[in-house]
Structure formats: C-alpha cells, structure tokens
C-alpha cells in the first residue's frame, strides 16, 4: 500500500506494478488529469495545496475501508501538489484484485471517496482570474 502526496510528476506505471500480485488477475487504474476547461470556462493551469500528513492518513483509512468492502489485493494512491499544467496527472488510484469486477468497483468508489474526504484543494487559474475550488460547504454558499 502506498499513499503519497508529492510535488513530483506521478508515476502510474510504478503504482500499477506495485499493486500487482501473482494471484490477482485484474488491475484497475484511474488517472485524474488537468482539463483545459471547468464549469464552462477556460483553465490555464491548476494549483493544488494539501495537508500532506493528514491526507496520507486519510487515504490509508479509505483504502482500508475499500479492502473491507471488496476482495482487494492492494491499493496505491498518489496525488500531486503545486502547479500543474493542462494534461498533467493530478491523481492516480490503482487497485488490484483477483477479479475485474471488484477492481473496477473498488477503484471507482475510492476515487469518489477521495474527493470527499482527503484534505486537498484546487485553485483554478483561468483567463478571468483565479479561484480556490471548495466542496459543498464553500463559505460563500454557507448560510
């Protein structure tokens, strides 16, 4: 199991190899990639901030939860922070399991959970300025 917040480019190939096991026939990998648009606007680049010590703990817990729900062999998650250009990879989630169905389901669930609970924040820098994107409870929407 590897859970990493890093400023360096991510390495999906390495994570894929790390989660693979001789007894497991399936590896599902998700890559979150920086898009050139968001909510109808052009994006020039992104900046990610994180609380790394907490983020790595939370990732580990989420992975443990996935292992309770599915017969997952191994999980690895990496998220990059700092400035990311269009097309660069911000997130990699790799999941191995004996059968493909569980690999897909666990990987999808992990990506969803990741978004909700891991302390990482994204600033979109676009033509119209820059803005921190926050979850449901963003202050400007709170009562």
């Amino acid at each position, binding site marked *: 199991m590897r859970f990493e917040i890093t400023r360096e480019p991510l390495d999906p190939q390495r994570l894929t190899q790390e989660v693979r096991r001789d007894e497991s026939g399936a590896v599902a990998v998700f890559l979150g990639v920086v898009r050139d648009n968001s909510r109808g606007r052009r994006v020039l680049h992104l900046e990610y901030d994180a*609380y790394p010590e907490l983020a790595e703990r939370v990732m580990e817990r989420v992975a443990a939860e996935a292992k309770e729900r599915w017969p997952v062999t191994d999980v690895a998650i990496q*998220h990059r922070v700092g400035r990311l250009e269009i097309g660069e990879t911000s997130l990699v989630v790799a999941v191995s399991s004996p059968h493909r169905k569980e690999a897909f389901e666990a990987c999808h669930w992990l990506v969803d959970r990741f978004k909700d609970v891991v302390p990482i*924040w*994204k600033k979109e820098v676009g033509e119209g300025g820059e803005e*921190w994107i*926050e979850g449901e409870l963003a202050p400007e929407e709170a009562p």
Partner: protein
Amino acid sequence: MKAKVRLFARLSDLAGLRETEVELGEGLTVSELFAALAHTYPALAGYASSLMYAVNAEYVPSDHPVQDGDEVAFIPPVSGGARCGSR
C-alpha cells in the same frame, strides 16, 4: 502555552501565511483558537462555519481543547484532484 497553526488553500492566501506559532491561554478549544486568529487576520472572519479542525494531523471536533505544543490545522471544504474528472 504555545501551539503551531497551519493554514491551507484559500485560508492561507487570505491570511498571507501558511504557518505560525501562537501564544494561547489554557483550555482554549480549536474553534476558539480560530476566532482568535480571525481577530488578528480579519480576512479569515466568516469562514468558521465551513471549517473542519485537525490537531496533530487528526480530525477533531470543534470543541477539542488545544494542548501545549499542539499543531492545529484549519481545513476548508476539500476539492481533491478527483474533482477534475467529476463534472
């Protein structure tokens, strides 16, 4: 007693700092510490309602008391990288 405060993302930009040492009285809770901080950095005022709190890299409730030497973090709503593929 002393605590280390860490700020992230929007809060860090608003306060103009990522990390600071604060002097505080015995028995102050993490939410009271944020209120005190918002007094020093008024741009932070109004964000209390949307925060989560962490002490020494563990989430804690808002009434958790700060101990000497603690690292206290104020956590805005998250928007992890997965978001880029979410809608």
